[in-house]
């Protein structure tokens, strides 16, 4: 039983493609605000990054750990409202507010998860759905947090220190940073035992327990990652809109879930791909047609979802993975021949 440590090179052919792609895309993304001077496309990109991060928050809990959350928006709301209330009522800096919101959301998530995680998965799904409804009603009636009107920021202090800008470019970079942070979280999970454990829990909890996995503990870890990220997205959204109201922070569960499922659950770039397709549709459709009051934007949105589900049930990431498999086919054919010639 001598366990030896073999260092494998990071710069393999298998890694070269994702690394090159990542660096290129990052460079393009960072330069975008320099070239895009029209506000609307920039707004759409900001939303893509934000929803990618929010999708990832759902993906960690539901895609990796298999604990389907039907009310992910409650953590977005807790994050956004915490920083907004702290800022408007107590003058607390929004950056600090973001940390406070993330902590509160994590505690909130722990309180929801604690009783549910010992039961079967559907209790958790139902609980999250109920909690977001209750939270929505409470916030709507609670005058201290602005009730149905919401909280409007005093537009006095601008700049990085106050997390408030007149231009879109700074928001763009912060949203991009938030998305990178979400990828970092996924990377930490995927490149450690946590990822293996979460996937095992998702597939079969009995197997997980039999292999020594403390199931409630690892569900709680997934919950902590997930809620923190959702809450940070909530603070960002409030700072971007410069107000917080129940509809814009507590009603995002369905799009968050949908775009992740569209893009591909349990994979790092699924949420970004899903957001990249659905958010432009949503935002442009809303901008061009919503005024007519015919809900045409909703219909188009629905149509696209139906088409994706029919063509690519595994999510859009399936297309990308298919392409990558073709790219590496020759290599795979040499190394991965699952043939056993006796023992």
């Amino acid at each position, binding site marked *: 039983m001598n366990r030896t440590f073999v260092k494998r090179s990071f710069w393999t052919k298998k890694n070269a493609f994702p690394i090159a792609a990542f660096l290129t895309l990052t460079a393009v993304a960072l330069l975008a605000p320099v070239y895009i001077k029209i506000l609307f496309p920039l707004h759409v990109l900001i939303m893509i990054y934000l929803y990618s991060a929010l999708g990832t928050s759902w993906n960690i809990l539901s895609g990796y750990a298999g604990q389907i959350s039907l009310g992910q928006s409650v953590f977005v709301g807790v994050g956004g409202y915490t920083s907004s209330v702290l800022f408007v009522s107590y003058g607390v800096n929004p950056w600090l507010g973001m940390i406070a919101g993330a902590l509160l959301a994590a505690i909130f998530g722990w309180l929801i998860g604690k009783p549910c995680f010992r039961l079967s998965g559907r209790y958790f799904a139902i609980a999250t759905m109920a909690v977001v409804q209750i939270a929505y009603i409470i916030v709507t009636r609670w005058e201290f947090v602005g009730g149905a009107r919401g909280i409007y920021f005093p537009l006095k202090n601008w700049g990085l220190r106050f997390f408030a800008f007149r231009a879109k470019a700074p928001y763009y970079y912060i949203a991009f940073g938030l998305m990178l942070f979400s990828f970092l979280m996924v990377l930490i999970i995927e490149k450690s035992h946590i990822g*293996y454990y979460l996937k095992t829990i998702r597939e*079969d909890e009995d197997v997980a327990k*039999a*292999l020594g996995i403390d199931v409630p503990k690892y569900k709680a870890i997934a919950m902590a990652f997930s809620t923190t990220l959702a809450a940070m997205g909530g603070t960002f959204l409030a700072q971007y809109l410069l107000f917080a109201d129940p509809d814009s922070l507590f009603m995002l569960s369905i799009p968050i879930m949908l775009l992740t499922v569209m893009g591909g659950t349990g994979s790092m770039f699924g949420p970004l791909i899903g957001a990249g397709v659905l958010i432009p549709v949503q935002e442009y459709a809303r901008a061009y047609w919503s005024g007519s009051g015919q809900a045409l934007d909703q219909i188009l949105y629905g149509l696209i979802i139906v088409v994706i589900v029919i063509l690519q049930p595994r999510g859009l990431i399936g297309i990308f993975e298919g392409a990558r498999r073709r790219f590496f086919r020759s290599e795979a054919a040499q190394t991965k021949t699952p043939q*056993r010639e006796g*023992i």
Partner: protein
Amino acid sequence: MELLEIRGVSKRFGGLAAVDSVDMYVSRGEIVGLIGPNGAGKTTLFNCVAGHCGITGGEIYFDGRRIDGMSPNEICAMKLARTFQIVKSITRMTVLENIMVGAFMVSKRIPLAREWAREVMDFCGLSPLADAKAGSLTIGDKKRLEVARALATEPELLLLDEVMAGLTGKESRDAVELIYKIRNWGVTVLMVEHIMEIIMPISDRIVVLDSGTKIAEDTPEKIARDKKVIDAYLGSAA
């Protein structure tokens, strides 16, 4: 004290006593066979020992410590591992990744866990399938993977639930070979098996369950001639 001691253990499901005050033990280094007709309570007894279901009576000791009431993961951490009668491979993971999940009990560091998993994979003859998705394996290889994954947690006692059911002649000969190897590696084995030609020669001692109760316990030679055992099997066949 023996490695595993089961004292008067019962498990009732409503009115049905699936396991009824069973006493048995397993000593270090043994291969013990647990047999009995379908529905005798063998899997239920495994579930009780491994902590997957609570017991309704009795006590279970492993390595000198009382384990009934503990959760399966705590019991696994005490170095008691089990396989499932109905194989539960993580189909979307590769063979190596499946084994790594067990190997994290030895080290949480990926490179160390991977090396250890490779060693276990080699030991179980699964290396040629390292990168195959577990869902694509034949039933024989799935059962082997089930054993490898449990073995990767580095157990002192391994509970094997019908790892040879549904295997071809060659596959079950390989499996017998593997079980001897596991014992020689220093792991004690308690195994359930229906195929008498396999369980009889391999076991040091046989325990027979029927309708939840222990009806016999002896060396394979004597069990083969035991009237109660023959009746139980003929009775269930009739």
